[in-house]
């Protein structure tokens, strides 16, 4: 039994379970049915959105209250480029959506990332409001009545588009943040900016890069989302509650953990859908999200996932297995403690 445990927690075991998860995800539309495929499309989208928030929030140490701006910018970019008359190919619009979002992030981030976090938080929030007002007010976005996109009714098309975007996002972020120099730079700047500078790290540049990375992802996802729902307006792609949701998903999953975003997104998206189904609106969900953020910060600042992490995880497993099984190989059980996830 403890061997099985060791297998799951070992490096090869983790790779195997990841491969299994991917296999399930890739084959899902074949056996999961339309409804659940759509739900899973939403989960993958939110997982990547929460991850993108986590890049600047958890790894960069700067809280963004306006991340929806990049999502909306991406959505409008794709919508504008696919409009009759421009008529771009859908896939060609996505890199543009990502680049536009990142460019806005760099312009806005440049002055405020030099200042303390509160400036950044409010500036990003104000950016989102400003973008929403502009989208509402100017002509070419259709104002509050929004824009329509060409219709593509294939459920699995969008499922795979989101899945690819999501897997790519997680892959790129994992490599950049956990397996490369960039991750060390960013975490050093987050933990002690002055000290990071004293080791030659260009702190402003690193923060800007992180913010740009964190904006590219919602930019691209916004583009896919726009094509998916075929009609966008400021209320659907620039609503502040989308940011709230990213914040709470990242917090539930734990700041500065790659996998946390996925767990947080899955749990909260399902709760969100449940609220929609039971109450027909999501205003009470907003209240729940707010309460959840406050409670997590108060009692579980490492994220709800930390309840099951590392030492707790092993303890939990042992408790579940009962004390009947002798602890034959404690070293195997301790292994997860050796590779700290937010190293």
């Amino acid at each position, binding site marked *: 039994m403890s061997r099985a445990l060791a297998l799951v927690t070992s490096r090869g075991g983790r790779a195997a379970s990841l491969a299994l998860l991917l296999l399930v995800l890739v084959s899902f539309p074949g056996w999961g049915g339309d409804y659940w495929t759509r739900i899973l499309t939403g989960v993958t989208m939110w997982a990547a959105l929460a991850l993108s928030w986590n890049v600047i929030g958890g790894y960069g140490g700067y809280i963004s*209250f306006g991340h929806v701006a990049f999502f909306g910018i991406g959505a409008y970019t794709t919508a504008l480029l696919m409009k009759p008359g421009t008529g771009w190919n859908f896939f060609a619009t996505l890199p543009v959506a990502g680049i536009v979002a990142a460019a806005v992030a760099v312009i806005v981030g440049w*002055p*405020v990332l030099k200042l303390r976090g509160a400036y950044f938080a409010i500036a990003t929030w104000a*950016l989102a409001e400003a973008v929403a007002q502009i989208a509402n*007010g100017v002509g070419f976005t259709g104002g509050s009545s929004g824009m329509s996109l060409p219709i593509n009714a294939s459920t699995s098309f969008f499922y795979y588009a989101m899945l690819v975007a999501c897997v790519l996002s997680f892959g790129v972020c994992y490599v950049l943040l956990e397996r490369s120099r960039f991750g060390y730079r960013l975490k050093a700047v987050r933990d002690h900016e002055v000290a990071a500078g004293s080791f030659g790290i260009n702190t402003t540049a690193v923060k800007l890069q992180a913010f740009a990375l964190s904006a590219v992802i919602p930019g691209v996802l916004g583009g896919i989302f726009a094509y998916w729902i075929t009609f966008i307006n400021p209320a659907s792609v620039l609503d*502040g509650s989308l940011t709230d949701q990213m914040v709470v998903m990242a917090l539930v999953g734990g700041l500065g953990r790659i996998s946390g975003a996925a767990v947080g997104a899955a749990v909260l998206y399902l709760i969100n859908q449940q609220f929609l189904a039971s109450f027909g609106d999501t205003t009470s969900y907003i209240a729940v999200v707010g309460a959840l*953020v406050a*409670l*997590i910060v*108060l009692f579980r600042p490492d994220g709800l996932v930390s309840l099951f992490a590392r030492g707790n995880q092993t303890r939990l497993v042992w408790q579940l297995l009962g004390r009947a099984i002798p602890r034959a190989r404690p070293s195997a059980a301790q292994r997860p403690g050796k590779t700290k996830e937010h190293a």
Partner: protein
Amino acid sequence: MSLLIQTILNGLLVGGLFVTLSIGFSLSFGVLDVVDFAVGEWVMLGAFAGVASTTWLRIDPIAFLPVVFVFFAVVGWLVAPLIYRVRNSRNARPALMALAFTFGLATLARGGMLTAVGFDPRTVKIGVVQGTVTLGAVEIPTLRLAGFAFAAVATGLFMLFLYRTRTGLAVRAVAQNKEIAGLMGVDVKRTSNFVYSLYAGLTSMAGVLIGGIYSITAQDGPTYTLMAFFVVVLAGLGSVGGVLVAGLVLGVLESLVTVYVSADFTLAIVFGILFLVLVISPRGILRRGTA
């Protein structure tokens, strides 16, 4: 020409209320070292308290102001220790977590009110002061005048308290330097709670009048958070004196944009200017704050 004067005057009068809602915000930042993202929610909740006073209790909101103050001061008194706890926790990034905490509270307030009253805009019907006062070519709505008078009195009393009383001295000492204030025998935690409670009450009262001048919806809180933040950035984060000027500037700016551009772009323009100030002079136009 008279339109311009009218517009500027209207702006100055509303600016008074912006001063009131920003001054407590600025001070609570100084004392608690937390940017309270919920500042706009106190305005929103205050406005709905005003709505409740007319629809349920049939009391004029002006007469109801003391009740609003006491009620929200008590709520603030209950919330403050939680903020203090997060801010002073051994967590890795207490300042950001405290910000996230107030964000959570703000979201809770917004979601709760949306669930309770929906998205429809409401107006606080203030019966005592209606109509306009004519001054030469310009007409001033009496309500705005009353709003300004309230702001002047409230801010004046607040400043008197801050600069002429022993408790006010303690508050300023904590805002300057918590450690030294603590060494000098000031109870930092008590002072923080007190300031937050005072600020919550004051801001909610301003909300009643703002809800009378403009209409308000349950999702308007963040807009007023941006207003307060704009004022405080212009003034320099932590500078109480600068708020007096910056609040009036915002009032005039908002009024000018509404009349000469469009109310739809107020936030976008306010953000644009905020951004420019941050680029040019992050410590505020008076260079008195901390970046």
